[in-house]
Protein backbone atom coordinates (compact mmCIF):
# COMPACT_ATOMS: atom_id res chain seq x y z
CA UNK A 1 0.00 0.00 0.00
CA UNK A 2 1.41 3.36 -0.93
CA UNK A 3 1.28 5.93 1.78
CA UNK A 4 -0.33 9.23 0.95
CA UNK A 5 2.97 11.03 1.61
CA UNK A 6 5.81 10.72 -0.89
CA UNK A 7 8.37 9.54 1.61
CA UNK A 8 7.91 6.12 3.10
CA UNK A 9 8.52 6.03 6.81
CA UNK A 10 7.58 3.85 9.72
CA UNK A 11 4.53 4.87 11.70
CA UNK A 12 5.41 6.30 15.08
CA UNK A 13 3.98 4.53 18.15
CA UNK A 14 1.62 7.46 18.61
CA UNK A 15 0.31 7.07 15.05
CA UNK A 16 -0.11 3.33 15.47
CA UNK A 17 -1.99 3.98 18.66
CA UNK A 18 -4.28 6.40 16.87
CA UNK A 19 -4.88 3.97 14.03
CA UNK A 20 -5.96 1.43 16.62
CA UNK A 21 -8.35 3.91 18.21
CA UNK A 22 -9.73 4.88 14.81
CA UNK A 23 -10.74 1.30 14.16
CA UNK A 24 -12.13 0.85 17.66
CA UNK A 25 -14.56 3.66 16.85
CA UNK A 26 -15.19 3.10 13.15
CA UNK A 27 -14.60 -0.66 12.93
CA UNK A 28 -17.94 -2.05 14.12
CA UNK A 29 -19.87 0.24 11.80
CA UNK A 30 -17.54 -0.41 8.86
CA UNK A 31 -17.73 -4.19 9.28
CA UNK A 32 -21.52 -4.06 9.38
CA UNK A 33 -21.68 -1.85 6.34
CA UNK A 34 -19.42 -4.19 4.39
CA UNK A 35 -21.41 -7.22 5.51
CA UNK A 36 -24.89 -5.84 4.95
CA UNK A 37 -24.38 -3.46 2.03
CA UNK A 38 -21.24 -4.29 0.06
CA UNK A 39 -21.50 -8.08 0.29
CA UNK A 40 -25.18 -8.19 -0.80
CA UNK A 41 -24.42 -5.83 -3.65
CA UNK A 42 -21.52 -7.93 -4.88
CA UNK A 43 -23.53 -11.10 -4.43
CA UNK A 44 -26.37 -9.60 -6.38
CA UNK A 45 -24.12 -8.60 -9.26
CA UNK A 46 -22.80 -12.18 -9.26
CA UNK A 47 -26.34 -13.63 -9.18
CA UNK A 48 -27.40 -11.41 -12.06
CA UNK A 49 -25.15 -13.47 -14.37
CA UNK A 50 -26.74 -16.78 -13.41
CA UNK A 51 -30.01 -18.58 -13.85
CA UNK A 52 -31.02 -18.29 -10.20
CA UNK A 53 -34.59 -19.39 -9.62
CA UNK A 54 -35.40 -20.30 -6.02
CA UNK A 55 -31.72 -20.50 -5.17
CA UNK A 56 -28.97 -18.19 -3.94
CA UNK A 57 -26.13 -20.47 -5.03
CA UNK A 58 -26.80 -21.10 -8.71
CA UNK A 59 -24.54 -23.02 -11.08
CA UNK A 60 -25.92 -22.21 -14.51
CA UNK A 61 -24.03 -19.19 -15.91
CA UNK A 62 -26.06 -17.19 -18.44
CA UNK A 63 -23.81 -14.18 -19.08
CA UNK A 64 -25.81 -11.07 -19.82
CA UNK A 65 -28.96 -13.15 -20.38
CA UNK A 66 -30.76 -11.70 -17.37
CA UNK A 67 -29.89 -8.17 -18.43
CA UNK A 68 -31.24 -8.60 -21.95
CA UNK A 69 -34.29 -10.32 -20.45
CA UNK A 70 -35.02 -7.52 -17.99
CA UNK A 71 -34.39 -4.73 -20.49
CA UNK A 72 -36.53 -6.56 -23.04
CA UNK A 73 -39.31 -7.13 -20.52
CA UNK A 74 -42.25 -4.87 -21.36
CA UNK A 75 -43.27 -4.93 -17.69
CA UNK A 76 -39.89 -3.50 -16.65
CA UNK A 77 -40.18 -0.69 -19.20
CA UNK A 78 -43.73 -0.07 -18.00
CA UNK A 79 -42.36 0.21 -14.47
CA UNK A 80 -39.93 2.93 -15.58
CA UNK A 81 -42.81 4.66 -17.35
CA UNK A 82 -44.93 4.49 -14.20
CA UNK A 83 -42.08 6.07 -12.26
CA UNK A 84 -41.81 8.85 -14.86
CA UNK A 85 -45.53 9.64 -14.69
CA UNK A 86 -45.56 9.49 -10.90
CA UNK A 87 -42.54 11.81 -10.68
CA UNK A 88 -44.11 14.25 -13.13
CA UNK A 89 -47.10 14.57 -10.77
CA UNK A 90 -45.64 14.27 -7.31
CA UNK A 91 -42.45 16.33 -7.56
CA UNK A 92 -43.97 19.62 -8.78
CA UNK A 93 -47.05 19.17 -6.57
CA UNK A 94 -45.06 18.59 -3.38
CA UNK A 95 -42.55 21.29 -4.22
CA UNK A 96 -45.20 23.93 -4.86
CA UNK A 97 -47.41 23.06 -1.91
CA UNK A 98 -44.60 22.78 0.64
CA UNK A 99 -43.00 26.03 -0.51
CA UNK A 100 -46.36 27.84 -0.45
CA UNK A 101 -47.11 26.53 3.03
CA UNK A 102 -43.66 27.53 4.29
CA UNK A 103 -44.09 31.06 2.90
CA UNK A 104 -47.56 31.40 4.41
CA UNK A 105 -46.73 29.83 7.78
CA UNK A 106 -43.39 31.64 8.03
CA UNK A 107 -45.06 35.01 7.77
CA UNK A 108 -47.64 34.36 10.45
CA UNK A 109 -47.36 36.44 13.59
CA UNK A 110 -49.58 34.20 15.67
CA UNK A 111 -50.35 30.47 15.72
CA UNK A 112 -47.25 29.68 13.67
CA UNK A 113 -46.38 26.67 15.85
CA UNK A 114 -49.96 25.42 15.57
CA UNK A 115 -50.02 25.47 11.78
CA UNK A 116 -46.56 24.00 11.50
CA UNK A 117 -47.59 21.13 13.75
CA UNK A 118 -50.79 20.45 11.82
CA UNK A 119 -49.02 20.28 8.46
CA UNK A 120 -46.12 18.32 9.92
CA UNK A 121 -48.25 15.79 11.81
CA UNK A 122 -48.90 13.45 8.84
CA UNK A 123 -45.16 12.72 8.83
CA UNK A 124 -45.89 10.58 11.90
CA UNK A 125 -48.23 8.41 9.87
CA UNK A 126 -46.92 5.38 8.01
CA UNK A 127 -47.63 4.84 4.31
CA UNK A 128 -49.47 1.70 5.32
CA UNK A 129 -51.89 3.53 7.61
CA UNK A 130 -52.38 6.37 5.14
CA UNK A 131 -53.04 3.90 2.32
CA UNK A 132 -55.52 2.10 4.54
CA UNK A 133 -57.44 5.34 5.17
CA UNK A 134 -57.34 6.33 1.49
CA UNK A 135 -58.31 2.90 0.21
CA UNK A 136 -61.00 1.90 2.68
CA UNK A 137 -62.57 5.19 3.62
CA UNK A 138 -61.61 8.24 1.58
CA UNK A 139 -61.46 6.79 -1.94
CA UNK A 140 -63.04 3.38 -1.45
CA UNK A 141 -65.13 3.66 -4.60
CA UNK A 142 -68.45 2.83 -2.97
CA UNK A 143 -71.15 5.15 -1.77
CA UNK A 144 -70.05 5.33 1.87
CA UNK A 145 -66.60 6.61 0.92
CA UNK A 146 -65.96 10.26 1.75
CA UNK A 147 -64.90 11.33 -1.76
CA UNK A 148 -67.96 9.76 -3.34
CA UNK A 149 -70.20 11.20 -0.62
CA UNK A 150 -68.89 14.69 -1.41
CA UNK A 151 -69.37 14.05 -5.14
CA UNK A 152 -72.91 12.95 -4.34
CA UNK A 153 -73.66 16.27 -2.62
CA UNK A 154 -72.92 17.95 -5.92
CA UNK A 155 -74.96 15.42 -7.82
CA UNK A 156 -71.95 13.83 -9.51
CA UNK A 157 -71.64 10.15 -10.27
CA UNK A 158 -69.70 7.78 -8.06
CA UNK A 159 -66.17 6.95 -9.09
CA UNK A 160 -64.42 3.60 -8.66
CA UNK A 161 -61.19 5.35 -7.76
CA UNK A 162 -58.73 2.50 -7.63
CA UNK A 163 -60.19 -0.07 -9.97
CA UNK A 164 -60.82 2.05 -13.03
CA UNK A 165 -58.16 2.68 -15.65
CA UNK A 166 -60.23 4.86 -17.95
CA UNK A 167 -59.75 7.60 -16.87
CA UNK A 168 -56.89 6.53 -14.57
CA UNK A 169 -58.32 7.99 -11.36
CA UNK A 170 -55.89 5.86 -9.32
CA UNK A 171 -53.25 8.51 -9.98
CA UNK A 172 -55.28 11.01 -7.96
CA UNK A 173 -55.34 8.57 -5.04
CA UNK A 174 -51.64 7.73 -5.32
CA UNK A 175 -50.53 11.35 -5.58
CA UNK A 176 -52.74 12.74 -2.82
CA UNK A 177 -51.70 10.13 -0.29
CA UNK A 178 -47.99 10.89 -0.76
CA UNK A 179 -48.66 14.61 -0.92
CA UNK A 180 -50.41 14.44 2.44
CA UNK A 181 -47.65 12.37 4.00
CA UNK A 182 -44.57 14.26 2.84
CA UNK A 183 -45.53 17.91 2.36
CA UNK A 184 -45.01 18.83 6.04
CA UNK A 185 -41.47 17.44 5.97
CA UNK A 186 -40.47 19.60 3.02
CA UNK A 187 -42.31 22.60 4.47
CA UNK A 188 -40.01 22.35 7.51
CA UNK A 189 -36.98 22.28 5.20
CA UNK A 190 -38.21 25.41 3.43
CA UNK A 191 -38.99 27.13 6.75
CA UNK A 192 -35.40 26.50 7.82
CA UNK A 193 -34.19 27.86 4.48
CA UNK A 194 -36.33 30.98 4.86
CA UNK A 195 -34.90 31.64 8.29
CA UNK A 196 -31.39 31.64 6.88
CA UNK A 197 -32.14 34.50 4.48
CA UNK A 198 -30.58 37.63 6.00
CA UNK A 199 -33.19 40.36 6.72
CA UNK A 200 -30.87 42.97 5.19
CA UNK A 201 -31.66 41.54 1.73
CA UNK A 202 -35.31 42.47 2.19
CA UNK A 203 -34.40 45.86 3.62
CA UNK A 204 -32.21 46.57 0.61
CA UNK A 205 -34.95 45.43 -1.77
CA UNK A 206 -37.49 47.67 -0.04
CA UNK A 207 -35.08 50.62 -0.37
CA UNK A 208 -34.82 49.85 -4.08
CA UNK A 209 -38.59 50.04 -4.32
CA UNK A 210 -39.43 46.35 -4.68
CA UNK A 211 -42.98 45.78 -3.55
CA UNK A 212 -43.61 43.04 -1.02
CA UNK A 213 -45.26 40.01 -2.56
CA UNK A 214 -44.49 38.58 -5.98
CA UNK A 215 -41.58 40.94 -6.81
CA UNK A 216 -39.76 40.29 -3.56
CA UNK A 217 -40.42 36.57 -3.87
CA UNK A 218 -39.10 36.39 -7.42
CA UNK A 219 -36.00 38.48 -6.95
CA UNK A 220 -35.04 37.79 -3.32
CA UNK A 221 -36.70 34.82 -1.66
CA UNK A 222 -36.70 32.32 -4.52
CA UNK A 223 -33.05 32.83 -5.54
CA UNK A 224 -31.96 32.73 -1.89
CA UNK A 225 -33.69 29.37 -1.48
CA UNK A 226 -31.74 27.83 -4.35
CA UNK A 227 -29.74 25.34 -2.29
CA UNK A 228 -32.83 24.25 -0.36
CA UNK A 229 -34.77 23.87 -3.60
CA UNK A 230 -32.08 21.70 -5.16
CA UNK A 231 -31.95 19.45 -2.10
CA UNK A 232 -35.75 19.19 -1.99
CA UNK A 233 -36.08 18.27 -5.66
CA UNK A 234 -33.29 15.71 -5.35
CA UNK A 235 -34.91 14.08 -2.31
CA UNK A 236 -38.34 14.13 -3.97
CA UNK A 237 -37.10 12.38 -7.10
CA UNK A 238 -35.11 9.75 -5.18
CA UNK A 239 -38.08 9.07 -2.92
CA UNK A 240 -40.47 8.82 -5.88
CA UNK A 241 -38.08 6.34 -7.49
CA UNK A 242 -38.30 4.19 -4.36
CA UNK A 243 -42.09 4.34 -4.07
CA UNK A 244 -43.45 1.01 -2.96
CA UNK A 245 -45.56 1.16 0.20
CA UNK A 246 -48.55 3.15 -1.04
CA UNK A 247 -48.65 1.45 -4.45
CA UNK A 248 -48.60 -1.99 -2.87
CA UNK A 249 -51.14 -1.25 -0.17
CA UNK A 250 -53.54 0.75 -2.31
CA UNK A 251 -53.59 -1.47 -5.37
CA UNK A 252 -52.99 -5.08 -4.41
CA UNK A 253 -55.86 -7.16 -3.10
CA UNK A 254 -56.72 -10.80 -2.54
CA UNK A 255 -56.43 -11.40 -6.29
CA UNK A 256 -52.93 -9.92 -6.41
CA UNK A 257 -51.57 -6.74 -7.96
CA UNK A 258 -53.31 -5.27 -11.03
CA UNK A 259 -51.32 -5.16 -14.30
CA UNK A 260 -51.16 -1.33 -14.30
CA UNK A 261 -49.33 1.19 -12.10
CA UNK A 262 -46.38 -0.99 -11.15
CA UNK A 263 -43.42 1.20 -10.16
CA UNK A 264 -39.87 -0.25 -10.29
CA UNK A 265 -39.78 -1.59 -6.75
CA UNK A 266 -43.14 -3.32 -7.11
CA UNK A 267 -41.81 -4.94 -10.28
CA UNK A 268 -38.67 -6.07 -8.43
CA UNK A 269 -40.69 -7.35 -5.51
CA UNK A 270 -42.89 -9.58 -7.65
CA UNK A 271 -40.02 -10.72 -9.89
CA UNK A 272 -37.55 -11.66 -7.18
CA UNK A 273 -39.82 -12.62 -4.30
CA UNK A 274 -43.06 -13.59 -6.01
CA UNK A 275 -44.15 -17.03 -7.23
CA UNK A 276 -41.14 -17.55 -9.43
CA UNK A 277 -38.42 -16.28 -7.04
CA UNK A 278 -36.29 -15.40 -10.04
CA UNK A 279 -33.39 -13.92 -8.09
CA UNK A 280 -31.13 -13.73 -11.15
CA UNK A 281 -33.59 -11.60 -13.09
CA UNK A 282 -34.47 -9.61 -9.97
CA UNK A 283 -30.80 -8.93 -9.27
CA UNK A 284 -30.23 -7.78 -12.83
CA UNK A 285 -33.21 -5.43 -12.42
CA UNK A 286 -31.82 -4.14 -9.12
CA UNK A 287 -28.42 -3.49 -10.69
CA UNK A 288 -30.00 -1.60 -13.60
CA UNK A 289 -32.11 0.50 -11.20
CA UNK A 290 -29.14 1.21 -8.95
CA UNK A 291 -27.15 2.37 -11.98
CA UNK A 292 -30.03 4.58 -13.15
CA UNK A 293 -30.37 6.25 -9.77
CA UNK A 294 -26.61 6.70 -9.36
CA UNK A 295 -26.30 8.31 -12.78
CA UNK A 296 -29.39 10.45 -12.21
CA UNK A 297 -28.08 11.66 -8.86
CA UNK A 298 -24.71 12.62 -10.30
CA UNK A 299 -26.30 14.34 -13.29
CA UNK A 300 -28.76 16.24 -11.13
CA UNK A 301 -26.00 17.30 -8.77
CA UNK A 302 -23.92 18.49 -11.73
CA UNK A 303 -26.88 20.17 -13.36
CA UNK A 304 -27.86 22.13 -10.29
CA UNK A 305 -24.29 22.66 -9.13
CA UNK A 306 -24.84 21.00 -5.78
CA UNK A 307 -22.43 22.19 -3.13
CA UNK A 308 -22.62 25.78 -4.23
CA UNK A 309 -23.36 27.93 -1.23
CA UNK A 310 -26.71 29.62 -0.67
CA UNK A 311 -26.55 32.91 -2.50
CA UNK A 312 -26.74 35.32 0.37
Amino acid at each position, binding site marked *: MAASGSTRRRATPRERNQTLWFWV*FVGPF*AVGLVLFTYVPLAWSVWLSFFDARNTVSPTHFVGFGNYTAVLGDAAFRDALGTFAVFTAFIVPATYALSLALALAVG*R*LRRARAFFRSVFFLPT*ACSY*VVAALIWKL*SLFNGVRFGLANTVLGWFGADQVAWLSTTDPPWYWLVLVTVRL*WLQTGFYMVLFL*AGLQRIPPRLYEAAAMDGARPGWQTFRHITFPALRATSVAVVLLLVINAFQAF*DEFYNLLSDARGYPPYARPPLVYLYYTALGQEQNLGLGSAGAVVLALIIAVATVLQARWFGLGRREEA
Partner: protein
Amino acid sequence: MNRDMGDALIRVGRALRLVLLLALAVLFLVPFYLLLRNGLASEADITAPGWTFFPRELRWSNLRELFDDPSVPMAHALLNSALIAVATTLGTLLLASLAGYGLARIPYRRANAVFYAILGTLMVPAAVTFVPSFVLVSSLGWVSSLRGLIVPTLFSAFACFVFRQYFLGFPRELEDAAQVDGLGPWRTYWRVVVPNTRPVFASVGVIVFIGAWNAFLWPLVIGQDRDAWTVQVALSTFTTAQSVNMHELFVAAAVSILPLLLVFLLLQRYIVAGVERTGIDG
Protein backbone atom coordinates in the same frame (compact mmCIF):
# COMPACT_ATOMS: atom_id res chain seq x y z
CA MET B 1 -52.21 54.42 -4.43
CA ASN B 2 -52.72 56.15 -1.13
CA ARG B 3 -51.36 54.76 2.07
CA ASP B 4 -54.63 53.85 3.76
CA MET B 5 -55.74 51.83 0.81
CA GLY B 6 -52.41 49.98 0.72
CA ASP B 7 -52.73 49.12 4.41
CA ALA B 8 -56.27 47.87 3.88
CA LEU B 9 -55.14 45.69 0.99
CA ILE B 10 -52.38 44.20 3.10
CA ARG B 11 -54.87 43.48 5.88
CA VAL B 12 -57.28 41.82 3.45
CA GLY B 13 -54.41 39.78 2.05
CA ARG B 14 -53.44 38.66 5.51
CA ALA B 15 -56.98 37.64 6.38
CA LEU B 16 -57.30 35.74 3.11
CA ARG B 17 -54.07 33.90 3.78
CA LEU B 18 -55.27 32.92 7.23
CA VAL B 19 -58.57 31.61 5.85
CA LEU B 20 -56.72 29.58 3.21
CA LEU B 21 -54.33 28.17 5.79
CA LEU B 22 -57.22 27.23 8.06
CA ALA B 23 -59.01 25.46 5.19
CA LEU B 24 -55.85 23.53 4.34
CA ALA B 25 -55.28 22.67 7.99
CA VAL B 26 -58.79 21.20 8.18
CA LEU B 27 -58.11 19.23 4.99
CA PHE B 28 -54.85 17.90 6.46
CA LEU B 29 -56.68 16.73 9.57
CA VAL B 30 -59.44 14.88 7.66
CA PRO B 31 -57.54 11.56 7.48
CA PHE B 32 -56.98 11.58 11.26
CA TYR B 33 -60.67 12.30 11.70
CA LEU B 34 -61.57 9.36 9.45
CA LEU B 35 -59.28 7.11 11.46
CA LEU B 36 -61.04 7.98 14.72
CA ARG B 37 -64.54 8.12 13.27
CA ASN B 38 -64.30 4.68 11.72
CA GLY B 39 -62.29 3.21 14.57
CA LEU B 40 -64.90 4.12 17.15
CA ALA B 41 -68.02 3.42 15.07
CA SER B 42 -70.05 0.28 14.60
CA GLU B 43 -69.76 -1.57 11.30
CA ALA B 44 -73.30 -0.43 10.41
CA ASP B 45 -72.41 3.22 11.01
CA ILE B 46 -69.35 3.00 8.76
CA THR B 47 -71.18 1.44 5.82
CA ALA B 48 -74.39 3.47 6.20
CA PRO B 49 -75.39 5.25 2.97
CA GLY B 50 -75.75 8.76 4.41
CA TRP B 51 -72.57 10.33 5.83
CA THR B 52 -72.66 10.65 9.60
CA PHE B 53 -70.00 13.04 10.80
CA PHE B 54 -69.85 11.41 14.19
CA PRO B 55 -70.81 7.85 14.98
CA ARG B 56 -74.08 7.65 16.88
CA GLU B 57 -72.25 6.14 19.82
CA LEU B 58 -68.52 6.03 20.46
CA ARG B 59 -67.70 2.36 20.77
CA TRP B 60 -64.57 2.13 22.88
CA SER B 61 -65.36 -1.58 23.04
CA ASN B 62 -63.87 -1.82 19.52
CA LEU B 63 -60.50 -1.73 21.26
CA ARG B 64 -61.25 -4.74 23.40
CA GLU B 65 -62.74 -6.53 20.43
CA LEU B 66 -59.51 -5.92 18.50
CA PHE B 67 -57.25 -7.36 21.16
CA ASP B 68 -59.62 -10.29 21.84
CA ASP B 69 -59.78 -11.29 18.16
CA PRO B 70 -57.49 -14.31 17.72
CA SER B 71 -57.44 -13.88 13.92
CA VAL B 72 -55.73 -10.47 14.21
CA PRO B 73 -52.39 -10.78 16.04
CA MET B 74 -52.27 -7.10 16.97
CA ALA B 75 -50.72 -7.35 20.44
CA HIS B 76 -47.89 -9.51 19.15
CA ALA B 77 -47.33 -7.22 16.18
CA LEU B 78 -47.16 -4.18 18.47
CA LEU B 79 -44.60 -5.97 20.62
CA ASN B 80 -42.50 -6.84 17.56
CA SER B 81 -42.63 -3.28 16.28
CA ALA B 82 -41.66 -1.88 19.68
CA LEU B 83 -38.72 -4.27 20.04
CA ILE B 84 -37.52 -3.57 16.52
CA ALA B 85 -37.88 0.21 16.75
CA VAL B 86 -36.13 0.47 20.13
CA ALA B 87 -33.31 -1.91 19.19
CA THR B 88 -32.80 -0.24 15.81
CA THR B 89 -32.71 3.22 17.38
CA LEU B 90 -30.25 2.31 20.14
CA GLY B 91 -28.06 0.24 17.82
CA THR B 92 -27.95 2.88 15.10
CA LEU B 93 -27.15 5.65 17.60
CA LEU B 94 -24.31 3.64 19.13
CA LEU B 95 -22.71 2.45 15.89
CA ALA B 96 -23.17 5.60 13.84
CA SER B 97 -22.09 8.02 16.56
CA LEU B 98 -18.91 6.06 17.32
CA ALA B 99 -18.05 5.90 13.65
CA GLY B 100 -18.92 9.55 13.12
CA TYR B 101 -16.68 10.54 16.03
CA GLY B 102 -13.78 8.44 14.81
CA LEU B 103 -14.05 9.93 11.34
CA ALA B 104 -14.30 13.49 12.65
CA ARG B 105 -11.68 13.43 15.37
CA ILE B 106 -9.15 10.61 15.23
CA PRO B 107 -6.38 11.25 12.71
CA TYR B 108 -5.78 8.31 10.42
CA ARG B 109 -4.11 8.23 7.05
CA ARG B 110 -6.92 6.52 5.20
CA ALA B 111 -9.79 8.17 7.09
CA ASN B 112 -10.92 9.95 3.94
CA ALA B 113 -11.05 6.74 1.92
CA VAL B 114 -13.11 5.10 4.66
CA PHE B 115 -15.42 8.11 4.76
CA TYR B 116 -16.03 8.01 1.01
CA ALA B 117 -16.64 4.25 1.14
CA ILE B 118 -19.37 4.96 3.70
CA LEU B 119 -20.74 7.95 1.85
CA GLY B 120 -20.85 6.01 -1.41
CA THR B 121 -23.51 3.67 -0.06
CA LEU B 122 -25.85 6.67 0.19
CA MET B 123 -25.87 6.68 -3.60
CA VAL B 124 -27.41 3.22 -3.61
CA PRO B 125 -30.75 3.59 -1.88
CA ALA B 126 -31.60 0.84 0.58
CA ALA B 127 -34.84 0.11 -1.24
CA VAL B 128 -33.00 -0.95 -4.38
CA THR B 129 -30.79 -3.29 -2.37
CA PHE B 130 -33.66 -5.19 -0.76
CA VAL B 131 -33.30 -8.05 -3.23
CA PRO B 132 -29.57 -8.62 -2.55
CA SER B 133 -30.09 -8.06 1.18
CA PHE B 134 -32.87 -10.62 1.17
CA VAL B 135 -30.50 -13.05 -0.54
CA LEU B 136 -27.93 -12.57 2.21
CA VAL B 137 -30.38 -12.72 5.10
CA SER B 138 -32.09 -15.82 3.76
CA SER B 139 -28.77 -17.60 3.33
CA LEU B 140 -27.98 -16.75 6.97
CA GLY B 141 -31.30 -18.38 7.88
CA TRP B 142 -32.59 -15.15 9.39
CA VAL B 143 -35.90 -14.91 7.54
CA SER B 144 -38.86 -14.42 9.89
CA SER B 145 -36.61 -13.64 12.85
CA LEU B 146 -36.12 -10.45 14.82
CA ARG B 147 -32.42 -10.67 14.05
CA GLY B 148 -33.16 -10.55 10.34
CA LEU B 149 -35.49 -7.60 10.86
CA ILE B 150 -33.08 -5.60 13.02
CA VAL B 151 -29.40 -6.32 12.33
CA PRO B 152 -29.18 -5.45 8.60
CA THR B 153 -30.83 -2.06 9.22
CA LEU B 154 -28.40 -0.95 11.93
CA PHE B 155 -25.68 0.45 9.68
CA SER B 156 -27.02 3.78 8.54
CA ALA B 157 -24.51 5.70 6.46
CA PHE B 158 -26.87 8.63 6.73
CA ALA B 159 -26.78 8.72 10.55
CA CYS B 160 -23.00 8.29 10.49
CA PHE B 161 -22.70 11.25 8.12
CA VAL B 162 -24.87 13.45 10.35
CA PHE B 163 -22.82 12.59 13.44
CA ARG B 164 -19.54 13.22 11.64
CA GLN B 165 -20.69 16.64 10.46
CA TYR B 166 -21.92 17.50 13.93
CA PHE B 167 -18.71 16.42 15.69
CA LEU B 168 -16.61 18.36 13.17
CA GLY B 169 -18.35 21.51 14.36
CA PHE B 170 -18.11 20.61 18.05
CA PRO B 171 -15.54 22.77 19.90
CA ARG B 172 -12.33 20.88 20.72
CA GLU B 173 -11.61 22.58 24.04
CA LEU B 174 -13.59 20.11 26.13
CA GLU B 175 -11.80 17.13 24.63
CA ASP B 176 -8.42 18.80 25.02
CA ALA B 177 -9.17 19.40 28.70
CA ALA B 178 -10.17 15.75 29.09
CA GLN B 179 -6.90 14.66 27.52
CA VAL B 180 -4.96 16.85 29.90
CA ASP B 181 -6.81 15.06 32.69
CA GLY B 182 -5.43 11.82 31.28
CA LEU B 183 -8.58 10.43 29.69
CA GLY B 184 -8.11 8.28 26.59
CA PRO B 185 -10.31 8.63 23.49
CA TRP B 186 -12.81 6.04 24.71
CA ARG B 187 -13.50 7.65 28.08
CA THR B 188 -13.32 11.13 26.59
CA TYR B 189 -16.05 10.10 24.20
CA TRP B 190 -18.40 8.69 26.83
CA ARG B 191 -17.75 11.15 29.66
CA VAL B 192 -17.27 14.40 27.75
CA VAL B 193 -18.54 14.21 24.20
CA VAL B 194 -21.78 12.25 24.57
CA PRO B 195 -23.13 14.21 27.58
CA ASN B 196 -22.50 17.47 25.74
CA THR B 197 -24.06 16.50 22.42
CA ARG B 198 -27.39 15.09 23.60
CA PRO B 199 -29.51 17.17 21.19
CA VAL B 200 -27.97 15.55 18.11
CA PHE B 201 -28.55 12.11 19.64
CA ALA B 202 -32.16 13.06 20.33
CA SER B 203 -32.69 14.36 16.79
CA VAL B 204 -31.15 11.38 15.02
CA GLY B 205 -32.76 8.98 17.48
CA VAL B 206 -36.25 10.31 16.95
CA ILE B 207 -35.90 10.19 13.18
CA VAL B 208 -34.51 6.64 13.23
CA PHE B 209 -37.29 5.56 15.60
CA ILE B 210 -40.03 6.96 13.35
CA GLY B 211 -38.44 5.33 10.32
CA ALA B 212 -38.14 1.97 12.06
CA TRP B 213 -41.71 2.04 13.38
CA ASN B 214 -43.13 2.95 9.99
CA ALA B 215 -40.84 0.75 7.86
CA PHE B 216 -42.72 -1.55 5.54
CA LEU B 217 -40.80 -3.07 2.64
CA TRP B 218 -38.06 -4.78 4.66
CA PRO B 219 -40.45 -6.17 7.32
CA LEU B 220 -42.72 -7.37 4.50
CA VAL B 221 -39.86 -9.19 2.81
CA ILE B 222 -38.28 -10.65 5.97
CA GLY B 223 -41.19 -10.99 8.41
CA GLN B 224 -43.00 -13.64 6.44
CA ASP B 225 -44.40 -15.75 9.27
CA ARG B 226 -47.28 -14.41 11.29
CA ASP B 227 -45.11 -14.44 14.42
CA ALA B 228 -42.65 -12.02 12.82
CA TRP B 229 -45.26 -9.51 11.61
CA THR B 230 -44.75 -5.90 12.58
CA VAL B 231 -47.71 -3.57 13.03
CA GLN B 232 -47.32 -2.28 9.48
CA VAL B 233 -47.21 -5.77 7.97
CA ALA B 234 -50.23 -6.86 10.00
CA LEU B 235 -52.24 -3.80 8.94
CA SER B 236 -51.14 -4.25 5.34
CA THR B 237 -52.15 -7.90 5.28
CA PHE B 238 -55.65 -6.98 6.38
CA THR B 239 -55.83 -4.08 3.92
CA THR B 240 -54.73 -6.09 0.90
CA ALA B 241 -55.22 -9.82 1.31
CA GLN B 242 -57.52 -10.88 4.10
CA SER B 243 -60.76 -9.22 4.97
CA VAL B 244 -61.52 -8.07 8.46
CA ASN B 245 -64.13 -5.88 10.10
CA MET B 246 -63.64 -2.26 9.10
CA HIS B 247 -64.06 -0.89 12.61
CA GLU B 248 -61.47 -3.32 13.93
CA LEU B 249 -58.99 -2.44 11.21
CA PHE B 250 -59.41 1.29 11.76
CA VAL B 251 -59.08 1.08 15.51
CA ALA B 252 -55.94 -1.03 14.94
CA ALA B 253 -54.52 1.64 12.66
CA ALA B 254 -55.32 4.31 15.24
CA VAL B 255 -53.54 2.30 17.94
CA SER B 256 -50.55 1.87 15.63
CA ILE B 257 -49.95 5.60 15.25
CA LEU B 258 -50.44 6.42 18.95
CA PRO B 259 -46.79 5.86 19.94
CA LEU B 260 -45.61 8.15 17.16
CA LEU B 261 -48.16 10.85 17.93
CA LEU B 262 -46.87 10.83 21.52
CA VAL B 263 -43.29 11.06 20.28
CA PHE B 264 -44.32 13.93 18.02
CA LEU B 265 -46.08 15.89 20.70
CA LEU B 266 -43.30 15.44 23.26
CA LEU B 267 -40.23 15.72 21.04
CA GLN B 268 -41.32 17.91 18.17
CA ARG B 269 -38.51 20.37 18.67
CA TYR B 270 -35.91 17.62 18.25
CA ILE B 271 -37.70 16.27 15.20
CA VAL B 272 -37.80 19.65 13.54
CA ALA B 273 -34.15 20.25 14.45
CA GLY B 274 -33.35 16.81 13.09
CA VAL B 275 -35.16 17.38 9.83
CA GLU B 276 -33.41 20.70 9.40
CA ARG B 277 -30.07 19.13 10.26
CA THR B 278 -30.42 16.00 8.18
CA GLY B 279 -32.54 17.14 5.29
CA ILE B 280 -29.89 19.32 3.72
CA ASP B 281 -26.17 19.05 3.58
CA GLY B 282 -25.07 22.11 5.48
